[in-house]
């Protein structure tokens, strides 16, 4: 799906077409789920957060004024993650191990020892140990593939703040991984 097709689907969704909106969901389903999972460390919660986020996206699609739909939906998902995070009283724990819910195609990657299961879990655990805002910045950059400008819009902060959050987050992550002998 190219950008023109996406713009058409957004327009149709704004006119009330549920089917067009479902095509958009299908396009971003995996990415939104992965972002929520990496933020929360728990698959059932990540699924619920995504469902809530897509429902509120549908309700506010008319307010979408153009620009990057990807950044817009990630903003809604990150807000839903923040609400879930507050509901859990600021605890982010790894209740589902990542290796329990991997993509079937990812198994070969693990079996080939590109990444060992222990390493995969150590990385996920290290991500959850980061302060919330640093974690969100790192996840949006690495897994959401957003640039600094887009991240600043998602996180409602200046681009300089994004830079420092990413820098501090990555340094901290590196230290955690080095301590866990993953690097």
């Amino acid at each position, binding site marked *: 799906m190219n950008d023109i097709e996406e713009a058409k689907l957004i327009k149709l969704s704004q006119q009330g077409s*549920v089917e067009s*909106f*479902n095509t958009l*969901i*299908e396009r971003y*389903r*995996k990415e*939104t*789920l*992965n972002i929520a*999972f990496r933020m929360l460390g728990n*698959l059932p919660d*990540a*699924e619920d957060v*995504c*469902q809530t986020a*897509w*429902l509120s996206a*549908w*309700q506010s699609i008319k307010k979408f004024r153009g620009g990057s739909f990807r950044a817009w939906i990630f903003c809604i998902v990150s807000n839903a993650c923040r609400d879930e995070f507050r509901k859990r009283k600021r605890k982010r724990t790894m209740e589902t191990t*990542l290796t329990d*819910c*991997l*993509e*079937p195609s*990812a198994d070969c*990657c*693990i079996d080939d020892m*590109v*990444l060992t299961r222990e*390493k*995969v879990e150590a*990385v*996920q655990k290290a991500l959850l140990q980061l302060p919330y805002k640093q974690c969100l910045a*790192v996840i949006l*950059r*690495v*897994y959401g593939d957003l*640039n*600094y400008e887009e991240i600043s819009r998602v996180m409602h902060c200046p681009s300089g703040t994004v*830079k*420092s959050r*990413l*820098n501090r987050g*990555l*340094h901290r*992550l*590196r230290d955690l*991984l*080095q301590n866990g002998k*993953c*690097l």
Partner: protein
Amino acid sequence: MKTGVKCFYKTECSKTREQLTSYIDGELGDKEQSQLELHLESCRSCREEYNSLRQTVSLLQQMPEVSSERTFRIDEKNVAQKTGDRNLLVLYRAAVGVAIILALVCIGDFGHLFTPSGDTSLGGYSWLIRGAESGLFVVLIALGSRILVHLLRRRKR
């Protein structure tokens, strides 16, 4: 002079370290990028720092994706339910607001704020009767709003 050189390198290194993430993400301008690359060539510790951060990013990128059987598709049913829930919430909040205002009025009445002084038509137990009246009124309003919300919710389902 020696201290000056040391100081210069320290500033240069800390500046470089602050920019390493932006460099890895390709978010540095051309001039800053070439300055940083020049520094990396000459400074071993910054190069090591850069390599460790690069490895961290690469490890993050290699992480496998999670999958789920849930489609998150929107259908008319869950859209209607969500809108209905929101309307009920608004209604419930309005009912609670009205109940609070009426409760305040009743409490004021209980404290004889709305009664002209010297009204003794209810005898010596007027405060007791007014209090019981006000309490009953508040309980009835709270119960009524709760029942109304419950009935509307059942009807929606």
